[in-house]
């Protein structure tokens, strides 16, 4: 398996809609639990290595409000930002990049039109094209799902990762639909399979519940670990998590 020359990244993920955080965030120090800017500032101060923002706005105006919010975060929070949500064209991607995203993730849009990956990589560079893959076990194999995990594609995850890397994906954001929301740990088999078979970094997502889970995901081959609710509800604080990883001999940024 290829090795990273960087430290493991801890990435909190915010779901936003119309520029506001979807589920309230439960920190004592937060004045406004729905303000993505304030939350991002706190995460960055706590040592988050990157912040992931998923925009689930359904309307044009909602999306515009989210884009404005991303601009505000990009100008005032000095850690990398990855943005995703409804990217179907290079124009969608350009909009997020212009607002200050460092990387943009494509999910359903890439499955429905794989050449979108190549086009975006050609225009903006592979390093900012993240392909998000939602994987679910079906009959003992990992299958790609789209539309937030609601729709089967019949595509095998192992075939899909080869293809997206060939097309120019610079990173893979890998979510296990089976593990997501369970807080029972990442799907280590899935992470290991993908990390063994690609040269680009793999971000593991779905299932984090305890600090041990992060260690397991890294040992399985993840270059970065993403989580949402355990951070938002203060169950795990990023600062303490990093200390825990360090004690487990995992290279982290101090």
């Amino acid at each position, binding site marked *: 398996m290829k090795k990273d020359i960087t430290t493991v990244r801890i990435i909190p993920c915010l779901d936003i809609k119309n520029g506001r955080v979807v589920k309230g965030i439960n920190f004592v120090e937060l004045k406004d639990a729905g303000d993505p800017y304030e939350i991002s500032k706190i995460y960055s101060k706590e040592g988050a290595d990157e912040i992931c923002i998923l925009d689930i706005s359904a309307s044009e105006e909602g999306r515009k409000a989210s884009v404005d919010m991303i601009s505000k975060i990009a100008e005032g929070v000095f850690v990398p930002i990855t943005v995703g949500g409804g990217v179907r064209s290079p124009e969608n991607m350009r909009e997020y990049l212009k607002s200050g995203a460092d990387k943009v993730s494509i999910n359903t849009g890439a499955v429905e039109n794989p050449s979108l990956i190549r086009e975006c990589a050609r225009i*903006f560079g592979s390093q900012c094209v993240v392909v998000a893959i939602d994987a679910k076990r079906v009959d003992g194999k990992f299958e790609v799902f789209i539309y937030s995990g609601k729709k089967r594609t019949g595509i095998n995850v192992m075939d899909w990762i080869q293809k997206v890397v060939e097309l120019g994906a610079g990173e893979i954001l890998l979510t296990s639909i089976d593990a997501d929301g369970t807080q029972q740990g990442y799907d280590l088999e899935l992470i290991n399979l993908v990390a063994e078979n690609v040269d680009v970094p793999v971000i593991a997502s779905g299932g984090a519940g305890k600090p041990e889970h992060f260690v397991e995901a890294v040992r399985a081959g993840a270059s970065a670990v993403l989580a949402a609710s355990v951070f938002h509800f203060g169950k795990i604080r990023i600062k303490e998590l990093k200390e825990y990883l360090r004690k487990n001999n995992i290279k982290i940024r101090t």
Partner: protein
Amino acid sequence: MDIPKQKIWIIDYEMGNLKSVFGSFRNFIDTVVLSHKPQTDADKIVIPGVGAFGKGIENLKRLKLLDALYELILERGKLTLGICLGMQIFFERSEESPGVEGLKFIRGEVKSLRHISDKIRIPNIGWAKTYISPNSLLFNKLSSYEYFYYIHSFFVIPQEEVKIGELDSDEIKFVSAVHKNNIFGVQFHPEKSGEKGLKIIENFLKI
């Protein structure tokens, strides 16, 4: 020491995320201009950018910026900071875009990280331990080792003594910060590297 009054021109040549670079300078001073129009009255110049070497040079040409850069940086000696691709284009050429000439401010070339090792993940994305020269004004009040954020697949190989910093992981090392006369360059992103990165921006404003 306070930050002296000055005007910063961040060159917008349509190569990637410039908002954060702008934001990081605005964090310290108001007189920051992000534009593709030459700001001849600027005191200092910042060339950011992510993306391909060839496309970067092509855009500079299309926006008719090459002459302005030679005049302001080489002839008039304005203090300049290149970030990521903005540093790579200071060199003579890049393996990424064969046949394309760089700005040639610094002797040397740009090559794929694959040449260093076939065992590492590429692109190199994340925070890496970096040695920085304590003697450089750009790194004033920072430790000799700091973590900075990188996102790239190519690295510079200078053919002259310009190194002021290098990525230093257990696996590999390569030059990631350079200084020659009035020109500084960094492969990592100070505007994305938290407080330590902002310190570099502040130092640049104080030089």
